[in-house]
């Protein structure tokens, strides 16, 4: 219709196009090349073929980092979804002051992740942290969340539940979109709360839950800041922090602490492949549980 405006359109999108070439396309190519080299930034890269990729499979830290990251993702993503769904359902059935509760649930999401890492250290401190003091009220002797390798990841998972605010808001918006008629006819049929929730609500908002499941997983697989703040860095060398060594942290260390730019580039590509593979499997497996109104995505 307005083909003669192509020039104008290209002017409007040119900032993105230039940025894409400089900060995405070129880096992707360069990263693929660097992954085949030894490079410490000071000396020129030297070509080593697939040595970096071979080294990945012999590096015990890669296995450890992958395992830690998987475990964290497998624990945190479903837990976050369940808590967010439960709180959104609660909010949706409240008739008054929903704005107040929504604010309370969203506010933690505003906390800078570095402060969340610090809060984790305080709240989950094994001796005098708030969590263990609370558990103590019930006679439970809480674990050493921040030092015991078996409890470091559960602590990180619990802490991650504090920031489900965005998911709650997204699910709540989806819940508001479920047509009231569906519930009216279900009530006529005498369906109880559980039946209405499991047969109407959850299927109707399943595209939203599916979206959150995928996005949260991609984010969890790249988690960095909270764990890095709490368990890595300049001072805490006496720490047993291997249990918190996430993949993104190991990559960061290889690149910017040891200046193994070639090896770190190979690590980045492995992460890319792992994320793509996991996302693809998730889509294939969960798609059949997702209900699209009118059969459309």
């Amino acid at each position, binding site marked *: 219709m307005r083909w003669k405006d192509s020039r*104008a359109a290209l002017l409007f999108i040119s900032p993105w196009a230039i940025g894409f070439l400089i900060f995405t396309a070129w880096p992707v190519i360069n990263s693929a090349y660097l992954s085949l080299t030894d490079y410490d930034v000071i000396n020129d890269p030297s070509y080593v073929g697939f040595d970096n990729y071979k080294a990945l499979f012999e590096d015990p830290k890669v296995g450890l980092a992958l395992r830690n990251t998987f475990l964290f993702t497998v624990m945190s993503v479903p837990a976050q979804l369940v808590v967010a769904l439960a709180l959104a359902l609660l909010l949706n059935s*409240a008739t008054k002051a929903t704005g107040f509760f929504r604010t309370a649930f969203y506010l933690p999401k505003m*906390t800078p992740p570095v402060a969340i890492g610090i809060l984790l250290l305080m709240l989950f401190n094994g001796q005098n942290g708030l969590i263990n003091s609370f558990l103590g009220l019930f006679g439970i002797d809480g674990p050493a969340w921040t030092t015991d390798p078996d409890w470091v990841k559960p602590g990180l998972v619990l802490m991650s539940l504090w920031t489900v605010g965005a998911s709650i808001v997204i699910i709540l918006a989806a819940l508001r979109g479920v047509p009231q008629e569906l519930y009216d006819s279900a009530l006529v049929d005498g369906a109880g709360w559980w039946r209405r929730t499991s047969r109407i609500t959850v299927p109707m908002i399943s595209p939203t839950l599916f979206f959150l499941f995928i996005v949260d997983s991609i984010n969890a697989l790249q988690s960095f800041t909270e764990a890095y703040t709490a368990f890595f860095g300049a001072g805490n060398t006496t720490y047993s922090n291997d249990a918190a060594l996430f993949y993104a942290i190991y990559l960061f260390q290889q690149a910017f602490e040891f200046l193994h730019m070639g090896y770190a580039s190979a690590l980045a590509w492995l992460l890319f492949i792992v994320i793509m593979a996991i996302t693809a499997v998730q889509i294939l497996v969960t798609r059949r549980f997702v209900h699209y109104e009118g059969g459309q995505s």
Partner: protein
Amino acid sequence: MRRAGRILTWAALGVFTVAFIYPFVWLLSASFKPRGEVFDHRLIPETFILDNYVKVWQEAPLALWMFNTLLVTVLAAVTVTITSAMVAWGFAYFRFPGRGALFGVVLATMMLPGAVTMIPVFLIWNSLGMVGTLTPLWAQNLFGSAFYIFLLRQFFMGLPREPFEAARIDGANNWKIFTKIALPLCRPAIVVTLMFEFQAAWTDLMRPLIYLRDSATFTVPRGLKALLDQFGFGGEWHWEIVMTASVVTTIPMVILFFLGQKHFIKGIATTGSKG
């Protein structure tokens, strides 16, 4: 039965509200306690002091860190909003060959993990001699960002076409149509973009870790991490300083949220529905 259900709902909401808000209150309260009482878990400090705030200001160049962060944050938010809006408008209003494919590329870049481009982008800034300066923390935003382009395009597509056609007939050029009509109409989406990026830039730790070397150039989160390394784990265990600095880092974000709560909630809700 229905009444019982209602009471249960309120009770559960109350319990969760306390659980979500308590860490804030606990942190704030601890920042007014002397070192020995930090972990006493009293809500109201037994000994109320302001020393921690004085001490953190003396121990760290907090005002400078604040200034650095504010500079980066404002530049990041303003530039990314202007360019993303331009690009989004280019994709939403015009039809041109390859539009679908190009927009597909925009979406695809959102799927690419940051880890893949992180190292080469660092090398670009390194070869420009800008590692150690604040520039790498925001300058990439001059070229827009895929997520905001997507969000704003979505908004532009929802606008009726008539005002633009009318302006065109009146002889307005493309730039005028964009700045005088399109931008004012999408003010809510612009505000959402500004706020999201303000938060993202203010809270980022990874890029400051990569690019900043000297304490004088630190942003507040980077400085907070340094304080934790020095006073938390560094053998000194002055948690009261670390906690006070955490409060100082967090409060601007809490203020931002209360200033623009409606926009935040709306923006987040749209992200989900457009997925």
